[in-house]
């Protein structure tokens, strides 16, 4: 095991996979950073420090710094993937999917199906998501709600450096298109990461972070920390929570959720995306259909309200899920009836 930051787990995994497989290429805006400036290539090395040093090591053929052209970035990733490469494209902010939605939704996601199973598009599209930096409505969003609903895409949301390592390696070696969502507020967090150069975590396998038996809490990414904190507080009163990290929202590990809810009979889904037609609503429908007889209370969700993300500190705090809101939801499912 090596202790490393979440962002370094991203960079080291890309670096290792590029060294292992010459078909892995990286592209995106400022993934080199400094091109065409006095500072020269690598003056920046990627705004998240997740591509630092790749250009110096692998050169311009495999590390392609692009203009601010999101449609061209994702489209080029599609063309590279259809032509035998394994592109890892970076969209910088997840919010920018709005610029290039056609290439994600109508192109990459649909090639294999439209073309009768005869094309292969092993593209990874990385993007940083999430609020907490007062970056307001266009640089803070959680976009898994939109992308998970697109058949043909796989959607990954790692919560720890170890999961970044295992899931990103799986993503790069996977033959289908994968959306890899990195939470901005997790980049500087640290954790132990396995040293095995082939350490991989399969998609569609959720992680049971803790078992408590009274209430099931399901979440992803940054919010898992809040769920754990709420579970700690409740444990002090003898209330036991199962906390489940989905890891991937597509494919979805239904079994781990249903197994837990069959014991607890109570579900709280905690999500950073808006409340309507999203992950939380989807999982509540899942247990309503498949674990109905086990339910002891209506499944609840803790999400932001149906609004854009506000700027001011007080407003953003009020908008986001919190430990208090999660604790309150757990108490409400326990108190029902």
């Amino acid at each position, binding site marked *: 095991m090596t202790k490393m930051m979440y962002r370094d787990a991203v960079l080291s995994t890309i670096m290792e996979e590029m060294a292992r497989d010459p078909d892995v290429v990286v592209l995106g805006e400022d993934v080199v950073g400094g091109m065409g400036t006095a500072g020269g290539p690598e003056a920046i090395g990627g705004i998240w420090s997740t591509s630092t040093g790749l250009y110096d090591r692998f050169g311009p053929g495999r590390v392609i710094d692009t203009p601010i052209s999101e449609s*061209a970035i*994702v489209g080029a990733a599609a*063309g590279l993937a259809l032509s035998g490469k394994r592109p890892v494209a970076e969209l910088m902010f997840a919010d920018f999917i709005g610029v290039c939605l*056609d290439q994600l939704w109508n*192109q990459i996601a649909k090639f*294999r199906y439209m*073309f009768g199973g005869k094309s292969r598009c092993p593209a990874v599209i990385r993007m940083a998501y999430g609020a907490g930096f007062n970056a307001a409505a266009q640089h803070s969003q959680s976009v898994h709600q939109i992308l998970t609903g697109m058949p043909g895409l796989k959607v990954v949301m790692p919560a720890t450096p170890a999961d970044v390592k295992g899931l990103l390696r799986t993503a790069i070696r*996977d033959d289908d298109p994968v959306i890899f969502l990195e939470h901005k507020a997790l980049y500087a967090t640290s954790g132990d990461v396995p040293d095995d150069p082939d350490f991989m975590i399969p998609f569609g396998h959720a992680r049971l972070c803790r078992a408590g038996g009274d209430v099931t809490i399901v979440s992803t990414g940054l919010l898992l920390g809040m769920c754990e904190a709420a579970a700690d507080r409740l444990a002090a009163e003898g209330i036991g929570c199962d906390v489940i990290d989905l890891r991937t929202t597509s494919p979805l590990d239904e079994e781990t959720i249903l197994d837990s809810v069959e014991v607890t009979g109570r579900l709280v889904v905690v999500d950073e995306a808006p409340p309507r037609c999203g992950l939380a609503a989807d999982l509540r429908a899942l247990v309503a259909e498949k674990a109905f007889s086990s339910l002891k209370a209506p499944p609840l969700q803790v999400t932001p309200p149906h609004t854009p993300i506000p700027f001011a500190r007080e407003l953003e705090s009020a908008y986001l899920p919190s430990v208090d809101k999660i604790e309150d939801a757990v108490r409400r499912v326990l108190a029902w009836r």
Partner: protein
Amino acid sequence: MQLSREALLNAYRAMKTIREFEERLHVEIQTGEIAGFTHLYCGQEAVAVGVCEHLGTRDRIVSTHRGHGHCLAKGCDVEGMMKEIWGSREGLCKGKGGSMHIADADKGMLGANGIVGAGAPIAVGAALASRANGPGPDGLDVAIAFSGDGACNQGTTFEAMNLAVVTQAPCIFVFENNHYSEHTGFSYAVGTDRDIASRAEAFGMKAWRADGTDFFAVHETMREVLAHVRGGGGPAAVEFDTERFFGHFEGDPQRYRGPGEIDRIRAERDCLTRFRAAVTAAGLLEHSDIDALDTQVMDTIEAAVSAARAAARPTAEDVLADVYISY
């Protein structure tokens, strides 16, 4: 450069195959047997064939909603395509794509596309793959983005042209200017008093212009373009002035056409008629050579239609197949 007799016969056969494929669809669609939206390529055959005759299977193309001609010219199987358009599970894409979504990766045909302008960035990606692979004995493999005058107004096309120049990707933007963006004229929709090629030049690439209804003009121009791009000269653009014999889609009432316009372009700017006149006048082929090919092609199309009619239909279980490689 003078083409061999064999090359001339191949070119004519390819153009005639596209023509009769489309003319037959025009008839069959009216019976209601074929589902969905279909956009026919008739009139533009010299472009697809004049470009693709230069390409090998490692060269890749991306196409448009009007893609049958590009698919056939790049080597997609006539019967497989007909079956696909009929929606058969024996079709090239198992009946999942239909007219607008035909692809054949083994032939370097990365896909027709239902979204106008979506193909250009994908072609740049294919060109970047070629750039990463480096040149072979004949230079770099190339990627061709076929686009119409409609797609030349899409931001994706601008982004793609700029990215290709910035990265010096071996990508060729082939603009087929048939003077109509769906139902709107070029002179209205393209806000320049010049042409599409001048836009490409403004992005920093070399551009060519030629008559897209003259197979020999297309073929000779592409020889120059390909020498430039395969040799590492960076991306290039070509604008071919051409004609669309049918409407935007099958069923289009074409009320935007001028009086006698279709009769005129069919009489004066038919690439097949022009090809026949040129090669027979020059004594390169006899009328009887061409008549023999016409018969062959008609037989091929007839056989493809019969096969498509008889081909197995997909079943409800097929809906679930091929979303992912593994899930």
